[in-house]
């Protein structure tokens, strides 16, 4: 275990113990005040320093100016006849779109080839399972609306598509025009392919 992880484990354990003790002794006003004061204090410190220590996110949302160029990775799969579809985050639940992009970027910059292939096989298996669930319309129950939108597959997307056997990762580059008024170019480059 890394040092940071041990420290976090210690802190979160302490937080749980303090919480249980505070609730048990909550009839004393001073206990309530101290606990609430600490919670508010931790929220403010996390926010001001920009250091997120769960359950205290920093809540710096879109704090920096949008750069002209945005780079990210996208995972797609294709069937035997090379008909390609983007893998939506919901196929890789519980991930959301941003972590899927981050994972794809990390996987193909830091993993060994063996691990990249294991990852590719895992995604193919997951994606085929997800495709079957979409066709069975098993995804129709009232889920809490996702925090990040991302179009999932529909039965229309899957018409006549065979099982997916090719896994690909693309590097996508969005360039905005000089005055940020439109997307100047959206380039994609294949950086990894794996056929099962």
């Amino acid at each position: 275990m890394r040092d940071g992880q041990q420290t976090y484990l210690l802190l979160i354990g302490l937080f749980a113990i303090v919480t249980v003790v505070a609730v048990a002794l909550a009839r004393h006003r001073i206990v309530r005040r101290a606990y609430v004061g600490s919670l508010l204090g931790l929220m403010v410190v996390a926010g001001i320093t920009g250091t997120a220590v769960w359950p205290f996110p920093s809540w710096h949302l879109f704090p920096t100016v949008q750069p002209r160029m945005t780079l990210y990775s996208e995972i797609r799969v294709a069937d035997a006849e090379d008909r390609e579809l983007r893998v939506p985050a919901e196929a890789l639940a519980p991930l959301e779109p941003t972590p899927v992009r981050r994972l794809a970027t990390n996987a193909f910059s830091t993993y060994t080839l063996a691990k990249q292939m294991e990852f590719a096989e895992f995604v193919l298996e997951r994606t085929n399972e997800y495709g079957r669930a979409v066709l069975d319309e098993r995804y129709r129950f009232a889920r809490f609306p996702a925090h990040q939108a991302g179009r999932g597959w529909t039965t229309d997307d899957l018409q006549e598509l065979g099982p997916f056997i090719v896994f690909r990762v693309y590097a996508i580059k969005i360039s905005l025009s000089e005055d940020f008024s439109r997307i100047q170019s959206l380039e994609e480059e294949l950086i990894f392919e794996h056929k099962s």
Partner: protein
Amino acid sequence: MTIFVNPLRETKYSALNLTVGRVIIGAFGAWIVLSYDFGALADWPEFIMRQHRLYGGVVGPMAVIQAEQWAAAAMLLAFAAGWQVRVTATTAALLLIHLGAVNMTVSNWKVLAFFIYPLLIFALYTARGDRIPRTIRPLQITLVMFAIIYAITGLSKLTRSGVSWFGPGNLRGTILVNATQHLDGVPRTTEVLLSNDFLLIIASVATVTLELALIVLVLIRAPIGTVMVGLLAMHVIIAVTMGINYVFSLGAIYLLFVPWEEISGQLRRRFKKLTPRS
């Protein structure tokens, strides 16, 4: 009558508002935790979990995650029903913290925090054997917490970007990139906003102003209705233009500040008028 009231201003105790608040936190919390596929994590390749394990030690065996998810949902529903409030609220909050930490290893679902904080406060302020707190304090503290979150969000834009954050290019670029990533392109309705520099600047200034205004209004005990409606509108516009949805997760918290007591009183009066006297 406004839609959202500041409980630091309207300090009258309302058992109905606290009960509705408890039900909303419990019910929405259960819905959100059940909608989330924690069980799927058990099948993830071990090395991915390890590689991305920010909170390493706390994760524990993945086999128990599913059980934990059901336990959290059960605790939240019991809390909503008012059963053993102190125990169920504390347990639910701690389980959500752990599930959130597990989730943070691979994803970024910080919206669970919106439910964790009010649960902790309700646990602290409900006496043993009671179903609701005997003071309006929990609603006051919850509102202060959410105002702090907004204030930090607004402040971080000023400290990290300054004036350049308000240039029309920033918001336009942000919308273009996010719409491409989350919505498969820019919806036609968004283009009205994108083609108008004036609207973009107004929207940017309004965003930071609203985010910073809430904490001030809350603390000087002023009415918060207008600012809350403005913030809610901001969340709706962000969801529509960028595909980032705080409307439901934060929306649940907004419901805590609807004057339920007053609404039910008015409905009762109206109903009485409609009922013919015998």
